[in-house]
């Protein structure tokens, strides 16, 4: 669900966040209007608004884990975790985590990739939020949910700054709620 439909309608912070996101056409390939959040990180106020909105939502939900998807999930997740007193767990590409890992495969446009998590990072029955900058097909988030559930943890919600049109109207991802702040900018420039 989008934040504007869920209590934050007309919130000026959402406009500031949307305006701070830069659209880069034809990256990584022709036809894709890439949603660049690095410009949001350059705008201290808008970046703080982003974190504050997530913190306000999750601080009273007894969340003990914030899991962030490499690499842009690392830019948002830790600040949220720190503010709500939760652990931060990085979910990483293969071969990066040094200890014993579990992994889950997910589909790319061509081929597959894997997401890994340290064994023992999350415990059974922990309440988890999974965070990434953007949700498109939901493949990566689904893999993340699987990792958590395989360890007996409960995914309370998936949270993203940006949600592509495919997810509009879809409140749930693999049965889990999805919370998104803004829609992509600049899509009217698509031919």
């Amino acid at each position, binding site marked *: 669900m989008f934040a504007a439909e869920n209590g934050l309608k007309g919130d000026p912070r959402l406009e500031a966040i949307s305006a701070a996101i*830069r659209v880069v056409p034809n990256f990584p390939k022709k036809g894709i209007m890439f949603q660049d959040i690095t410009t949001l990180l350059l705008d201290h106020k808008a970046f703080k608004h982003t974190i504050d909105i997530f913190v306000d939502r999750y601080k009273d939900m007894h969340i003990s884990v914030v899991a962030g998807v490499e690499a842009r999930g690392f830019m948002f997740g830790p*600040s949220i975790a*720190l503010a709500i007193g939760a652990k931060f767990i990085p979910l990483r590409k293969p071969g990066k985590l*040094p200890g014993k890992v579990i992994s889950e495969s997910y589909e790319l446009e061509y081929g597959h990739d894997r997401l890994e998590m340290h064994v023992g990072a999350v415990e059974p029955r922990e309440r988890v939020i999974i965070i990434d900058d953007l949700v498109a097909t939901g493949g990566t988030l689904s893999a993340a949910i699987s990792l958590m559930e395989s360890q007996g943890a409960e995914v309370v919600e998936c949270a993203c700054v940006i949600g592509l049109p495919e997810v509009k109207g879809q409140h749930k991802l693999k049965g889990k709620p999805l919370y998104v702040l803004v829609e992509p900018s600049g899509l009217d420039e698509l031919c």
Partner: protein
Amino acid sequence: MSGNKVEEDPRINGIKTKIRVVPDFPKKGIMFQDITTVLLDPKAFKDTIDLFVERYRDKNISVVAGIEARGFIFGPPIALAIGAKFVPLRKPKKLPGETIFEEYELEYGNDRLEMHVGAVDAGDRALVVDDLIATGGTLCAAINLLERVGAEVVECACVIELPELKGRQRLKGKPLCMLVEYRC
């Protein structure tokens, strides 16, 4: 807190005990310093960030640059707390806009660090953040990128230093602030 080390602060020991050492990763002979276990302890993680924030909040830092990927975990919370922008320094081809790059040496071959054009302005006062300093090669590349666009690198900040690798000497004269030393 004074000087480049903060060894007198009682929070340091709590952080140090949370770092997990993983032998022979990524290859035999390397004792890998795993900070993910620090992130699993909300108090230790908060203390880590607080120590840096306390040091930098009154130093008019306008940019915190974090090195991919573990610098992305520590850098943004520091940036948010001190009112600075956060700039990710990334491996090649990850940043979507126009970039500049700096090469640095690996054990075998080279790699590149990239930064978006326009992210940092001339006159910006910058911190460079990473989880660990080893040889200093990546940090040196980061300093070069920032200086090329006219920023002033005030300090490098790392959770862990491997002093035997002498990375501190490769920082173009810039000071290093670290919390925990690891000697083999």
